[in-house]
């Protein structure tokens, strides 16, 4: 049992982080906090990948004659890509939040939903110009 | 049995579909539009007639249009039963076309082009059902009839009409999807084919691991899925559909739609299950009692209807069950009687509906209680009504007597005494709801409260009266010269009971 906890502590950490992030994404009402949760959630998975690559006493995977025992480079490469993806998701999310703030004047989910329900299906504005009705609740 | 390959059944179906195009483009010129309707009707009838000699010679015309999936193809087969139905429907379409023209013009109906278009489509689909060679093709055309008659039932577009039409659609489309399609799935799953067989699809695979319970369930699903046959308790769409203009009620609810229903029931009984198999399972008797129930109950309800069209509708429900009853007896005479009743009831009921429409056009009366003394104003109409009503009751010298005669012989053959009682009781009930109308029309004095200008004869437009006179004469002729129809009916009975 101890073996299971100590020996695989990296997994435990990543699972814990994942759950923290997951909780924030689901339970938090503030849109930014959700995004923070999302980043924790994703990072936990990245950590998990990296820890699987670890080889005890391994050196860096460089084409080099002393490198006969080296850590697995592939997870690192994959995670590099995944980090790029994660950054783009965050960027899109933040951009969305800015637009949400402009449109509703708040980033609290409850208030936004309340406002959205007041005008569930507003008629499409087909004229040109400002895309959104300026919210009067903005302070 | 000799098979002739010919595309004639396709032409018979397509002719009114092509006419739809012409009707649509000539919508602004009513005379031209009506010419196309009549031309299509006449052409269709003559194509059907041209196939008659081949069928009478004991041959079968086949034509395969296309295969949608392996095992699912649209193909046509003209056999005695098919041509029997097609003859009836296509002939009555000609008559109804003339009648319709008189009706819609004198009432100045709106959306006349739509009316004629969907009428033509419905007729095409009816031909499709008559000539289909497998259950899949039948199902397609069955659905097309439902969908294309919806605009006709909803024609008036009043809330009441929409309500009736919705009920119509829910019953017909709903049951066909929920039950009929299910039954088709099961049939294909068990038999691997949907091709109608003279002795029955299931009869052919008897003993190949299909359990009795499976067959019974499939049979019940089929019968429940064919709500067009208006077997109780799935009958109430028919009175609801009476909101339609009268020619629609006349052709569709006396010929095309309801007859399609019983026709498909007949097909299911004879060609999917087969006489022998059903007799073995005892399902024929069960169906016969079920139909008897409908006959009696619908007649009793008809007695209490004051609206003329509603009374006719309930009479239709009861009469349709004669057809089902006859075929459910599973004896040659029963089947002959049942098939004869398709044409006899068609002529009789269409005449009655034509009369109801003529009365409405001439005097705007819809209730039975308002008809006192109307026989003096509308002698031709009411004479035709009388002839048709006598036929409905089943008295000689009208056509209706023939089918009832065969039905009773069929019941005797099957040894079903209770069925004979049902037939006798229902005859009395039929008389009970038709004779008072005739009596009132000819022997009662008109109600003085209803303003009645002196004019003695106020008939409906001549086109309408001519049509209804023609069909009334048809009823009479069918008694004296039923030769072609009777011959066909006997051919069918012989072939499905294995006599051929």
């Amino acid at each position, binding site marked *: 049992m101890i073996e299971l906890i100590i020996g695989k502590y990296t997994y435990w950490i990543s699972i814990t982080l994942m759950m923290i992030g997951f909780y924030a994404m689901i339970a938090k009402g503030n849109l930014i906090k959700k995004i923070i949760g999302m980043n924790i959630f994703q990072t936990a998975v990245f950590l998990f990948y990296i820890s699987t690559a670890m080889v005890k006493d391994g050196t860096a995977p460089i084409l080099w004659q002393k490198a006969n025992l080296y850590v697995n480079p592939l997870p690192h490469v994959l995670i590099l890509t995944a980090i790029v993806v994660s950054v783009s998701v965050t960027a899109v999310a933040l951009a969305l939040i800015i637009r949400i703030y402009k449109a509703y004047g708040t980033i609290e989910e409850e208030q936004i939903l309340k406002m959205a329900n007041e005008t569930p299906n507003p*008629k499409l504005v087909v004229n040109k110009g400002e895309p959104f009705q300026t919210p009067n609740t903005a302070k | 049995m000799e098979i002739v390959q010919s595309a004639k059944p396709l032409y018979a179906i397509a002719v009114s579909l092509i006419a739809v195009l012409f009707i649509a483009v000539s919508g602004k010129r009513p005379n031209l539009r009506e010419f196309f309707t009549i031309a299509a009707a006449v052409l269709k009838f003559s194509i059907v007639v041209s196939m008659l000699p081949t069928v009478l010679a004991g041959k079968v015309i086949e034509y395969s249009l296309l295969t*949608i999936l392996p095992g699912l193809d649209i193909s046509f087969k003209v056999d005695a039963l098919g041509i029997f139905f097609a003859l009836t429907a296509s002939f009555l379409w000609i008559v109804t076309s003339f009648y319709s023209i008189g009706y819609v013009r004198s009432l100045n109906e709106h959306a006349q082009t739509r009316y004629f278009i969907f009428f033509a489509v419905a007729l095409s689909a009816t031909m499709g059902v008559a000539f289909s060679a497998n259950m899949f093709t039948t199902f397609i055309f069955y659905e097309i009839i439902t*969908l294309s008659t919806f605009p006709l039932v909803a024609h008036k577009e009043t809330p009441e009409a929409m309500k009736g039409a919705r009920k119509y659609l829910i019953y017909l489309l709903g049951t066909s999807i929920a039950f009929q399609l299910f039954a088709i*799935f099961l049939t294909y799953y068990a038999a691997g084919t949907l091709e109608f067989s003279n002795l029955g699809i299931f009869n052919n695979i008897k003993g190949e691991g299909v359990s009795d319970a499976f067959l019974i369930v499939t049979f019940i699903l089929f019968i429940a899925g064919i709500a067009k046959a208006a077997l109780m308790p799935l009958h109430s769409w028919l009175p609801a559909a009476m909101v339609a203009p009268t020619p629609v009620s006349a052709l569709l609810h006396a010929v095309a739609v309801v007859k399609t229903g019983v026709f498909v029931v007949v097909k299911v009984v004879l060609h999917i299950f087969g006489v022998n198999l059903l007799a073995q399972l005892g399902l024929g008797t069960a169906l016969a009692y079920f139909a008897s129930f409908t006959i009696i109950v619908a007649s009793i309800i008809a007695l209490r209807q004051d609206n003329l069209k509603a009374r006719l509708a309930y009479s239709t429900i009861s009469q349709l069950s004669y057809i089902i009853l006859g075929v459910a007896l599973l004896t040659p005479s029963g089947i002959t009687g049942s098939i004869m009743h398709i044409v006899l009831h068609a002529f009789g009921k269409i005449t009655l509906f034509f009369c109801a429409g003529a009365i409405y056009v001439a005097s705007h009366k819809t209730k039975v209680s308002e008809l006192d003394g109307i026989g003096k104003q509308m002698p031709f109409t009411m004479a035709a009504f009388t002839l048709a009503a006598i036929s409905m009751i089943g008295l000689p010298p009208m056509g209706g007597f023939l089918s009832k005669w065969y039905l009773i012989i069929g019941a005797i053959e099957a040894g079903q005494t209770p069925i004979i009682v049902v037939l006798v009781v229902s005859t009395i009930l039929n008389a009970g709801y038709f004779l008072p109308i005739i009596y009132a029309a000819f022997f009662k004095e008109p109600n003085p409260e209803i303003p009645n200008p002196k004019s003695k004869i106020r008939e409906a437009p001549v086109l309408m009266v001519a049509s209804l006179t023609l069909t009334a004469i048809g009823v009479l002729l069918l008694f004296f010269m039923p030769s072609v129809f009777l011959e066909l009916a006997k051919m069918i009975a012989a072939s499905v009971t294995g006599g051929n």
Partner: protein
Amino acid sequence: MINITEHLPVLIIVISLMSAAIIPIAGRFNRHYSWYITVAVTFVSFLISISLLNRVLNTGKISYWLGGWQPPWGIEYVLDYLNIFILLIVSFIAFIVSLYARHSIEKEIAEHKISTFYSVYMLFIAGLMGMTLTGDLFNLYVFIEISSLAAYTLIAVGRKRNALMASYNYLILGTIAATFILLGIGYLYMVTGTLNMADLRELLPPLYESKVVLTAFAFFTVGLSLKLALFPLHIWLPNAYTHAPSVVSAIMAATSTKVGAYVLLRIMFTVFKVEFDLEVVPVTKILLVLSSVAIIAGSVLAIAQTNIKRMLAYSSVGQIGYIVLGAALINQTAMTGSLIHILNHAIMKGTLFLVIGAVVYKTGIEDISGLRGMGKKMPYSMAAFTIAALSMIGIPLTVGFVSKWYIAMGALNAGMWYFVPIILLSSLLTAVYFWRIIESIYFEDANTEPQNAEYSQIRNPDDAPLGMLIPTLILAGLCLFFGVAAFLPVSIAEKAASMLLGGM
């Protein structure tokens, strides 16, 4: 000289990605250039997928090694009967919708965003095609994220502010799904050391009992169910479809959930073997139950809607249930039905959303009441709507019937007759929510509410512009064409199904 035909499998993705970069630049010179490029590129993609189909039909499987690296080390693109089928659907719908997009987009999206819209649209398509083509799990993850990111943007690009929240919620859920998939990939990599799907198929069987593999499978299933909006993980979908611009609703409804379904099939039947789904985990049983609930619940919820786009979205939830149901029955007939339904639903839903787009273009109304009396005003669009609606109900001679037939037969063949009533019941429910619309299109007088007053004064037919009408009618025509000539898609789908079930 490089032999271009050799490189078609990657070219189809590369040109879409490249055009995504070029379009905004071209748009700087003239707004209309971006549309021309989009149409041209999607058309070329469609042609490429046809030529690939030809090759697959002649030679069977095509394997393309990206950069010449041999799998399992390099990334492999694999084309077989299954994904060429999906690729054709995606590229065709992308072409049709881009043809249609021009007018609709000019009305629904602010002018300065139009060229960006087309750029993101191409990214979205590229992502979907990549998901379809790739034979490498990690590459799959990257393409999932490309298409998802593009989808979030596309949903939010319109003028409606509710779209922003819909997009945000989709982003959160979509990221959870994608991260689950990433985690699943990690687990599989941990135990096998490979990311190549074909390689995994060979290496996994001895490890089927391993907890890690089971966990990986669970993460895949949940993540992908979210992507394809399988009930009860569908909650992002109705809002997204409702508030997105019409063009986006159309392309998403027709392609993205379908590709999600395809990926689920790939994972269930290519990476894992049929025996795993049947014997090791009860996943098919769970999916059968979920999909049945989806079919009924989707239809029931659709009945309750007044916004027509939301109604169509819930109907999509039900239709996705069909696809999963057919796959989870695990037999040849049902699987064929499921694959056919991917095509059929793409065509039908595509048509419906395009018609609604045309109505929004003309009137700006998305409510069901907006369709009142439209039969006289927009006769061609409404004819297309009616055809697609009848097809959704499953009337014979339309595509909807074919897939229902196959799935129902598959259920009977599998001895699970109780799925047939579910299918039929949902047909009835579908009939309920479509028929009330058809009725109000043809049998009610035009909308006279003030918001629509301007339009209801138009007496004569005033249908959508030809640029919108023609693509809609093409799709509606296909609803009928493939309903009659069903053997064409069925012949491919049958091969794909037997490949999925019987090994590569």
